[in-house]
C-alpha cells in the first residue's frame, strides 16, 4: 500500500456508491423474491439477483485492487484507538462479505441444481454438484451472511453520520464531496 492520500479519488468514490446501491438493491430483492409464490416473475428476479451478485463480486475485487494501488485516507487525527480498530475491522469484514455473499449464493445455486449464467449468456461453472441438503445449508449461510452485511452497513453508516454530525470532521465528506465545507 502506498502512503495514505488526503482523500478518496473519484474512481474510489464512484465504486463505493455503485456497490452500495448494488448491495441495497440486490439484498432487498433477495429478501423480497424468496417469499414470492412461484411465477415467471420470480424466476426472473432470481436470475437478476444472481447477475447483480456476480457484478458486485467483480466490483468488490476491483475495489480491493484499486485500494491496494491507491491507498485510502487515514482516519482523522486524535481518533481513539478503539474507534480505529472498529473502523478497520468493519471495513475488512465488509470486504469479506462483499466477496463471501456472492460466493455463497453461487454455491447455493449450484447445489440446488441451477447453474449461474451471467446475463443469460455467460455460464459460470458449477464448483459443486446438485445436493439439495447442502443447498439448504448454503441458503441458510447466504441468509446469515446477509444479516451480517445488514448489521455492518448500519454500523458503517451510523459511524459516518456520527463523524459528520457529532465529531464534525471530514470522514463522511471524503465519500460525499458535495458535503465539503471549503
Amino acid at each position, binding site marked *: 500500500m502506498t502512503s495514505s492520500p488526503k482523500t478518496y479519488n473519484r474512481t474510489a468514490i464512484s465504486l463505493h456508491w455503485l456497490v452500495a446501491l448494488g448491495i441495497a438493491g440486490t439484498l432487498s430483492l433477495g429478501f423480497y423474491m424468496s417469499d414470492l409464490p412461484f411465477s*415467471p416473475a420470480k424466476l*426472473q428476479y432470481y*436470475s437478476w439477483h444472481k447477475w447483480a451478485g456476480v457484478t458486485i463480486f467483480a466490483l468488490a475485487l476491483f475495489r480491493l485492487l484499486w485500494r491496494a494501488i491507491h491507498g485510502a485516507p487515514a482516519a482523522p487525527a486524535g481518533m481513539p484507538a478503539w474507534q480505529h480498530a472498529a473502523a478497520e475491522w468493519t471495513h475488512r469484514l465488509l470486504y469479506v462479505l462483499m466477496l463471501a455473499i456472492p460466493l455463497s449464493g453461487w454455491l447455493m445455486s449450484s447445489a440446488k441444481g441451477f447453474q449461474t449464467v451471467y446475463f443469460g449468456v455467460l455460464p459460470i461453472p458449477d464448483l459443486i454438484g446438485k445436493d439439495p441438503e447442502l443447498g439448504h445449508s448454503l441458503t441458510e449461510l447466504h441468509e446469515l451472511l446477509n444479516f451480517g452485511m445488514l448489521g455492518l452497513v448500519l454500523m458503517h453508516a451510523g459511524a459516518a453520520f456520527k463523524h459528520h454530525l457529532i465529531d464534525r470532521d471530514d470522514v463522511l465528506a471524503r465519500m460525499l464531496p458535495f458535503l465539503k465545507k471549503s
Partner: protein
Amino acid sequence: MKLHSAALALGLLVSLSAGAAEYSQLLADKSALGFTYKQMNVPVEGSFKRFKAQLAFDPAQPAKASAAFDIEVASIDVGSAEGNGEVGGKLWFNTAAFPTARFVSSAVKPLGNSRFEVAGKLSIKGRTQDVVAPVSFKQDGANGVFEGVLPIKRADFGIGEGMWADFGTVANEVQIRFRLVAAAKK
C-alpha cells in the same frame, strides 16, 4: 489363459444367443427417462421416475420393432422442490385430469450402424403429436440398451399455459433424453 479363453468363448456364446433374442423386458431400475429445458437460459435437468414399456426389438429384424410407453406424469422431477410443487397443476401437466403420458411407435427405420429412427405418436396432457426420435442400440452383456434424444416443444402439448405460455422464462424447447435397458425374452 485357459480361463480367459473360456470366458471369451462364453461371452461369444452369450452375445450370439442374445443377438437372436428379442429385447422385450424393460429393466426399470437400469433405465432412465429424463429431460433438459432452459429456464432463464439456464439448462435444468429433470426426470420421470416411473414409467412402463412394452418393447419388442430383434436386432436381426429392426424394422419390425415396436415400443409403447406409459409414463406416470406425477412422478416428474423438474429439478427443484418448488417446481415439483407446481408442475402437476392445471397450467402445467394437470396430472389430476391427465395422469399418463404415452408414446406409441408406428415405424422403425434402420439408419445403419445400430442407429434407428423411431416414429410414433406422443400424447401428453390429452394432446397427441407425431414425433420422430433417433435411437441408438447397443448390447450390454445380456441386455439391450436404447439411447436417444427427442426434442419437443412444450407449447405443442399445452405444457405451461397462462402466465407460463411466454417462452421468456421457460423455453419452449425441451429435450427428452432416454436410456432404456431391456432384457431379452428367454
